[in-house]
């Protein structure tokens, strides 16, 4: 029996695979394809204090080996999320991680406080890295001091583990990671999307209505693996690695780079069965390579 379980702070995951925020909504749609109890955890769509309509369309574009998105944090606001979206997830035997976004530190704190009233929240993922300028948050994701400040403020009000999600659009990702670790983060998730753009040759304008969008998918995997590898060696809290994971081998690559768990975003759109297939792929890899405990793989590329 291979042990696939991992811990992210005090969260116990039966396996290291979860969907990435924003790519799985609140789970309902994928529940039509498989039993969500198979997952290690679920990370839901970004939640803000007030409802947000998000950006105009087009909101997505295909790029070579990847895609751009500028959804713009469309969500019904924290009240509705608590009332209407989270409860149905309780029936699955998995930790629920709620992605929190905002424009000011006060926003983040207020959303977190509201979420503490719900029994359906097992961890907070702080989205300080939304690459879409208009949605706020990006300034926290590029300046270590501000990232530390927002982390600290959330930690003060959170009763559940706080995971801080880092932006790759920085000169020094290690400095960002160290700052949020020092500020008390229980874990780090990385990477959010790279800021990119496609131009529509017919319209002679950026294809995405918002102009810039966030690049995700296999194209960004080498950047994500590199950052995971660098950050894992510099901090002592666990990392949830993501960026272009499409199959079990990609997931293993992140574990070897130093991630304790992985999140799957874009792959869900390509293949709705991506998450369970990746769990199976990790299992198979372990069987074929005599790995008894998936935790033994974490960071072997530099250990």
């Amino acid at each position, binding site marked *: 029996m291979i042990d696939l379980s991992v811990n992210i702070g005090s969260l116990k995951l039966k396996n290291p695979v979860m969907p990435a925020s924003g*790519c799985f909504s609140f789970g309902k*749609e994928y529940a039509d394809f498989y039993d969500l109890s198979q997952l290690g955890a679920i990370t839901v*769509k970004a939640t803000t204090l007030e409802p947000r309509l*998000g950006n105009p369309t*087009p*909101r997505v574009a295909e790029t070579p080996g990847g895609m751009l998105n500028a*959804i713009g944090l469309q969500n019904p606001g924290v009240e509705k999320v608590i009332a209407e979206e989270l409860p149905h997830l309780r029936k699955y035997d998995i930790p629920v991680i709620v992605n929190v976004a905002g424009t000011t530190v006060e926003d983040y704190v207020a959303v977190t406080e509201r979420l503490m009233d719900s029994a359906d929240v097992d961890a907070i993922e702080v989205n300080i890295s939304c690459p879409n300028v208009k949605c706020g948050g990006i300034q926290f994701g590029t300046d270590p001091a501000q990232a530390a400040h927002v982390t600290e403020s959330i930690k003060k009000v959170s009763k559940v583990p706080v995971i801080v999600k880092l932006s790759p659009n920085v000169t020094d990702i290690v400095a960002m990671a160290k700052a949020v670790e020092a500020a008390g983060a229980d874990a780090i998730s990385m990477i959010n999307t790279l800021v990119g753009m496609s131009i529509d040759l017919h319209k002679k304008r950026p294809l995405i209505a918002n102009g810039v969008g966030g690049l995700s998918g296999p194209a960004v995997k080498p950047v994500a693996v590199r950052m995971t590898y660098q950050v894992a060696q510099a901090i002592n809290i666990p990392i949830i690695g993501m960026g272009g994971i*499409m199959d079990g081998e990609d997931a293993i690559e992140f574990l070897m780079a130093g991630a304790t768990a992985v999140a799957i975003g874009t792959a869900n*759109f390509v293949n709705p069965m991506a998450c369970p297939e990746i769990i199976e792929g990790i299992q198979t890899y372990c069987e074929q390579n005599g790995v008894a405990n998936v935790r033994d793989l974490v960071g072997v590329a530099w250990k």
Partner: protein
Amino acid sequence: MARLTILEHREIADNMRWLAFEAPQDLHYQPGQFLHIRVTDGVDHLLRRPISLCKVDGGRQVLAVAYRVGGKGTKLLAAKNVGDTLDVLGPLGKGFQLHDGDSHAILIGGGIGVPPMVELADQLHQKGVKVTTIVGFQSKNVSILIDDLKKYGDVLIATNDGTLGLQGFVTDYMTDELLSSADRFYACGPTPMLRAVQAKMAGRVEGYLSLEERMGCGIGACMACVTSCQLPDGSIGFKKVCKDGPVFPAPEVYFA
């Protein structure tokens, strides 16, 4: 989700193709729903292409679509051969609703909005509803599916350049006489056409519009494909073309 085998694949007009699959065993479908098709197994074209279901035939054995070869993905699709298999999700979304008691329906298709009208026309016809289809194309060389539609009722044709049928727009056929005889309309096509149809029909004939939007997941999870709609409380909000649509009751659709 299934890997479907290609049974037929041929050109039906300039850059327009007919693509028929062996249907999955447990096929459930409505006219107006779409298939979400992966054009390659590699990662160079990650996103699936939404293509409307055009016709189900042979006692549910054959599932066909018609599509335009335009960008890089549909070019790859065009290179697939009979016998190849494709990764297909669907049929997805909400299709056209048929209403008991209707006796005459107007179907309006523009360009690549024409394909979903074929299955719809067939189903209406089978239900005993009189079908009048108005189709619009840029030009004769890109006109498609006219003979297929004629099996189920009258087909009125408009082209921008007058190379086939009337020179003009589909709305030119929407005379008071026609509208007053109709119980329902169903439209699919480019936004300017849908906007004109919505305006023309408002307060006169009830019906449905089928919308297009760039998609990510195709199943309602990513929020990529939203469109402005009149919400139940009267405010304007977003609905998802992939899950709440692509077919919406015409008055719900809000064109900015």
